[in-house]
């Protein structure tokens, strides 16, 4: 089933000699998204007009999505703001398909988060599904076995009718594709806000593991090595732009109508994963690249750019799903589940035997040359002849205008400190429950119950815990933890601070599991780069994030930028999703997020300030967004992480839970609901020590705070640990269970309560009913 040649497509392609002979022909560069100066630069590079095939390649590779032309000058900071310590464990940094980190014992972890926002709005199911598929192929390309996925989702208002359409589609797509791949989905984020109504965010993250010696890179080297395309056949999906070329080349017919959104086949991808891993195991691959955005254009030009020579391709050898595709469409097609490999000629038969075993269709398209050119033929005629770097690497770079948004002054002046606070216990109780059942703090199991986290048998932590955690080595217990965060409301108030807050929270979420934070990936979701105010937000966020990483001494290893996220002229809140990866020497030492035993002391680490600006409380209770987001002290966060790790190593900590959205009240409620163990809590000492009122103690979102539970016998040691390290600690309660059921409901009727002394008491049943009912009310019943 290999190298079956396809019947010739209709029409004759625009050849290089034709392009030289007809310099004056008008080309639809603008409709392909190229600016006039960009088009002129292509002509200058080539010394002639581009062929329609070359125009297709340049237009898609020079797009914002592929070239990072608006963000490049900022993203350099991630590579510049590094210390030798930050590079120590970094095996592959930014610029490859995904970053790779040495986690010890000969193991490495590769991870990356990427956006699939626009396809997911047009066609939520396939958009989200292929988002998972795309990021997973990036991970395979590094030579790794993918072992986990996560998703970072932002939807419009929960009560908008269109939100249900998008939510059902996106969650269904992720569930369908991820479950079918056999990758545990171990966490993520879901937020609702009207600002995302016409532009939901669907980011997908994947993590893979590999032995050091299995690392693969995307380069085409070695004269005479074969260039092989394998996986699904190439079809007409995702080539909206190429139809313009088709109509240009064949003026007889109108534009061909093709779906703009790619369609995914997770079974094909699952087989492709196993096939690739077997190819890696048998050392049959020299270089490998996945086909995602820009398809064959991207894979050939990137592989050739990263290699040491050139490449020759016979495009008619591409196996097609639709034999009527033109050469330009084949170059631009974004059909899913395809990979391109560089294979030594003497290993080709063995390579083809493996792909045949997995029933993966394969065709040899060409070979590595020493011409320094990427040459693509179509039925014997040369249709592309370019220097590959001009397509893949040396694209345009823009220094877009940046303008300080003057509206932000008034926004920051409008502090939440003037909003009415609850004063009585009844008011506090009412607002606590309103927050608990609010769209953004409500239980997300309507979503996560559709994801398999058991598959693989190595999931040590998953939602609703603060991080997902996966065992890497079954003998030693070595594993990684990963968490992502981004608070768009904070970023709207102050994008620099918002990015630092996202980093701090993801870092803390990893630390509370007992893991050591090591590396960062990011997905920077913003509005239009042509809006100077958006560029200001972007530049601020990148500066904040890169400075923050330097302070925490953890490198950014890769990521993605998504611009043009806006509804009409209104950009989304800046949403820089930050993912932090940590390492734990033995996952058996992991710290759960909820209380499992009664009679443990509950401690609050860190201090509480009056920081209600941008909080969930201000948003939910008052519909308010204004002021300045909480302060963040990254040196303090480092101390906190070190303290948690020390406590974990000594086995002193029974549970730890990060305080973030909704503050202490929400963290307490989640700790109760996790396993059904209640608590008696007092907040008077917080109020006295930190000089705050009850509402601030319960709802403030000050950073550097974690609640931990400690068995009584370890009390003295734990307090000593905190005092020795000078970290503020206060005993604020004791766990108190009566009849424990847990999520599985195996216990007796549960009478646990959360009592905030002198203020209010809420029973477990009411907590759970409030927390669990919100999503089903809008999206339908859940099982169990």
């Amino acid at each position: 089933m290999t190298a079956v040649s396809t019947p010739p497509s209709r029409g004759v392609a625009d050849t290089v000699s034709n392009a030289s002979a007809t310099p004056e022909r008008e080309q639809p560069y603008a409709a392909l998204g190229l600016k006039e100066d960009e088009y002129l630069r292509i002509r200058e590079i080539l010394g002639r007009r581009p062929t329609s095939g070359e125009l297709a390649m340049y237009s898609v590779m020079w797009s914002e999505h592929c070239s990072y032309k608006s963000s490049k000058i900022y993203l350099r900071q991630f590579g510049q703001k590094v210390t030798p310590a930050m590079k120590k464990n970094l095996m592959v940094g930014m610029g490859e398909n995904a970053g790779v980190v040495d986690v010890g014992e000969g193991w490495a972890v590769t991870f990356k988060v990427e956006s699939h926002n626009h396809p997911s709005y047009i066609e939520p199911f396939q958009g989200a599904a292929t988002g998972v598929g795309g990021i997973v192929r990036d991970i395979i390309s590094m030579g790794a076995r993918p072992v986990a996925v996560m998703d970072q989702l932002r939807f419009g208002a929960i009560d908008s009718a269109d939100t249900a359409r998008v939510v059902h589609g996106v969650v269904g797509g992720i569930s369908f594709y991820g479950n079918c791949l056999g990758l545990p989905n171990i966490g993520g984020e879901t937020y609702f806000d009207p600002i995302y109504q016409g532009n939901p965010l669907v980011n997908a993250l994947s993590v893979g593991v590999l032995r050091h010696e299995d690392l693969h890179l995307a380069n085409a080297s070695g004269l005479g090595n074969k260039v092989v395309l394998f996986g699904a056949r190439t079809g007409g999906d995702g080539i909206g732009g190429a139809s313009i070329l088709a109509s240009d080349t064949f003026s007889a017919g109108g534009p061909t109508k093709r779906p703009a959104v790619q369609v995914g086949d997770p079974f094909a991808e699952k087989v492709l994963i196993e096939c690739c891993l077997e190819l890696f195991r048998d050392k049959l691959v020299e270089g490998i690249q996945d086909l995602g955005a820009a398809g064959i254009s991207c894979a050939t030009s990137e592989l050739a750019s990263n290699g040491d020579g050139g490449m020759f391709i016979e495009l008619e050898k591409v196996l097609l799903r639709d034999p009527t595709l033109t050469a330009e469409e084949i170059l631009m097609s974004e059909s899913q589940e395809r990979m391109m490999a560089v294979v030594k000629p003497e290993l080709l038969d063995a390579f083809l035997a493996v792909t045949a075993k997995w029933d993966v269709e394969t065709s040899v398209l060409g070979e590595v040359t020493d011409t320094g050119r990427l040459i693509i033929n179509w039925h014997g005629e040369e249709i592309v002849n370019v220097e590959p770097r001009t397509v893949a690497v040396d694209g345009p770079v823009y220094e877009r205008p940046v303008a300080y948004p003057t509206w932000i002054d008034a926004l920051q002046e409008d502090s939440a400190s003037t909003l009415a606070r609850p004063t009585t216990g009844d008011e506090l109780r009412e607002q606590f429950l309103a927050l608990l059942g609010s769209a953004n703090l409500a239980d997300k199991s309507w979503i996560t119950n559709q994801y398999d986290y058991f598959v693989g048998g190595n999931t040590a932590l998953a939602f609703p815990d603060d991080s997902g955690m996966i065992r890497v080595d079954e003998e030693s217990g070595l594993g990684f933890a990963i968490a992502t965060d981004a608070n768009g409301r904070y970023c709207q108030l102050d994008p620099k601070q918002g990015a630092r807050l996202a980093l701090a929270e993801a870092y803390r979420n990893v630390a509370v599991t007992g893991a050591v934070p090591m590396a960062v990936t990011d997905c920077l979701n913003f509005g239009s780069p042509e809006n100077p105010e958006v560029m200001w937000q972007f530049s601020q966020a990148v500066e904040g994030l890169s400075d923050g990483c330097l302070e925490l001494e953890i490198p950014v290893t890769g990521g993605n930028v998504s611009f043009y996220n806006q509804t009409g002229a209104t950009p989304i809140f800046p949403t820089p999703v930050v993912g932090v990866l940590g390492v734990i020497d033995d996952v058996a030492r992991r710290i759960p997020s909820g209380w499992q035993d009664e009679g443990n002391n509950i401690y609050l680490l860190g201090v509480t300030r009056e920081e209600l600006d941008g909080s969930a409380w201000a948003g939910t209770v008052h519909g308010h967004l204004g002021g300045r987001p909480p302060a963040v002290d990254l040196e303090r966060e480092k101390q906190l992480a070190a303290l948690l790790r020390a406590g974990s190593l000594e086995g002193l900590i029974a549970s730890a839970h990060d305080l973030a959205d909704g503050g202490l009240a929400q963290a307490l409620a989640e700790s109760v609901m996790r396993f059904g163990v209640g608590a008696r809590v007092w907040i008077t000492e917080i109020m006295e020590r930190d000089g705050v009122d009850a509402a601030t103690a319960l709802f403030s979102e000050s950073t550097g705070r974690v609640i931990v539970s400690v068995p009584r016998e370890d009390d003295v040691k734990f307090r000593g640990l905190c005092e020795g390290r000078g970290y503020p600690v206060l005993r604020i309660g004791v766990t108190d269970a009566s009849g424990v059921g847990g999520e599985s409901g195996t216990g007796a009727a549960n009478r646990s309560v959360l009592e905030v002394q002198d203020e209010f008491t809420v029973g477990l049943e009411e907590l759970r009913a409030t927390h669990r009912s919100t999503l089903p009310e809008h999206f339908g019943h859940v099982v169990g």
Partner: protein
Amino acid sequence: MRIGVVTFPGSLDDRDALRAIRMAGAEPVALWHGEHDLHGVDALVLPGGFSYGDYLRCGAIASLSPIMTEVIDAAGKGLPVLGICNGFQMLAEAHLLAGGLIRNDHGTFIRRDQKLRVENTSTAWTSGFEQGQEIVIPLKNGEGGFIASADELARLEGEGLVAFRYLDVNPNGSLNDIAGVRNERGNVVGLMPHPEHAVEPGFGPDTADAMRSGVDGLTFFTSVIEQVLVAA
């Protein structure tokens, strides 16, 4: 004592099944769907997953894989065979077990820690349980609704061929809350929930004692080891 696990294109829980066998104390043997060879194993697991992408019907294409000729033959001779989730669907498609599996009644994939009652302990895979024992193992499927004709259902119930029943929650609309069934001889058992995901402390379902500490699934594998040893 060697127990095989067949990998089909799209199998997902094959490595988990191999691990479960090892943890129960037997030697796991990886088998490939395209071969006509069971490599002399003493028992066999058809694992969970989405073989052939669940195209046509779940398990339908895999049930025609080359190795299934040997599986059907060996099952007829008494080889213990366990079908988990997609493996159960294959056994139903291959008519080694009665009934069929259809889309969950609520229409979506569901993953949960599922309570079951062991209804029948006279099988190769359940002999280590107590009759009526309640266990919790993970469930995760999109097409787990058990169906059978009225006559067939009456026969399954009448002849004691129901192996497991859902308790507290019927997660997929299965008739009579049936989670798993056995054949007449008791060597072939199929169920939708996943015993191989509840074999190792720290990685199983939650229990009242501790997070993720459930290991009720291990008994499936220790049962068959004991059965084979007794028979030998």
